[in-house]
């Protein structure tokens, strides 16, 4: 029986779309940088220091925070960051 050689596909049968990285800015002049705190312990300490350093060089900084590090960022938050910022720095882990 040829039937025994046909296997059904256990996967979602969807191919992940290839996404290229956004183009990196050549310099930070006039850019708005988002700092994303994922609510992990001491992420704020790291981001506070980054904000100081960036602000000292005249870069506009906006702060964002995920409600919890255990779940993906809410769609609204991702949209807000994407529309308000030219670049984003995420404090990923403690």
């Amino acid at each position, binding site marked *: 029986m040829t*039937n*025994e050689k*046909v*296997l*059904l*596909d*256990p*996967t*979602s049968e*969807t191919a*992940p779309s290839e996404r290229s990285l956004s183009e990196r800015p050549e310099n930070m002049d006039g850019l708005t940088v988002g700092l994303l705190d994922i*609510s992990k312990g001491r992420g704020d300490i790291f981001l506070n220091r980054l904000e100081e350093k960036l602000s000292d060089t005249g870069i506009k900084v906006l702060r964002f925070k995920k*409600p*919890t590090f*255990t*779940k*993906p960022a809410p769609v609204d938050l991702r949209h807000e960051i994407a529309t308000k910022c030219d670049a984003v720095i995420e404090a990923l*882990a403690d």
Partner: protein
Amino acid sequence: MFERSWTDGLPVVPPTTERVRKMLAGTSRSADEIVVSVPPNLIECSVEKIAINAVMAGCKPEFLPVVISALETICTEEFNMHGVLATTMSVGPIFVVNGPIARDIGMNSGINVLGHGNRANSTIGRAVQLVINNVGGGGPGGVDRSTLGHMGKQGFCFSENELSSPWSSLAENRGYNSSQNVITAFTGEGPRLVMDQKSRTPESLIRTLAEHLISTVSSRIVVGMDAMLVLSPEHSARFHEAGWSKERFLEEIAAIMMIDTDNIIAGSGGIEEGLPAEMKGMSLPKFRPDGLLLVQAGGPAGLFSAIIGGWLNGPPGSEPTSKEILL
């Protein structure tokens, strides 16, 4: 199939059309019904896709309703399977089955209950993990970032020995009745043995159990993480014979597990891990109310029980989640 990353590293049963057709006979649901959205990629998943993975895991058709309901418990906002996968902690979904179906499909609640050797116990959890990997796209090294993992992530499912105990079952404590078929998912580590072969009174044995439960995940973590206690028949008998109710057991063990925060403040005992200094002088419970899930299971001989540490509980983490199994 291994080279296509369709397996968990062990051999799988080839999912031929004939085997999948037979598997689908195990449920009243139609093959094309979408039952869950599987994390991390949130892919809508049909009964047929679950059946394919259940064949691969080695399930019998009568296990399929349990596999489907297991996925319905974890593919929810409250269980947060995405977070359970992504965490670096060594946790995975653990399933407890209550109700007549556990006996009907031959699940083990006795000797070696948390181990191998029973087809239903060994393959139901495995099928769930294959769906997460193959449909949801959540495999080790991808979204699964666990530092160490544990063997139970291969699939961890067992049933409660509810017929030989005067106490209510886990499902009854969670609002179901004993005639309902229920699956409960809990995010946990691998099990750890607790030995107490000398306690003859409930007052002594409960202190041993509490002493070990306090150490789950970290003895310096309180309230934020749950645990499961798998109480063996001989340990259970200490309480049953003394006339203790399950409610009394849970009240008394919670009272013993009140932690003096001075002993777990960062820096105390020469250990830098711990609570912030402003939390000194408090008495806090090891577990939140209902944060200790008690299951009775295991072989008839042996003065041992098992404890299973949890993960972040509540809305920021993972809630224990129960569903009635639709046949």
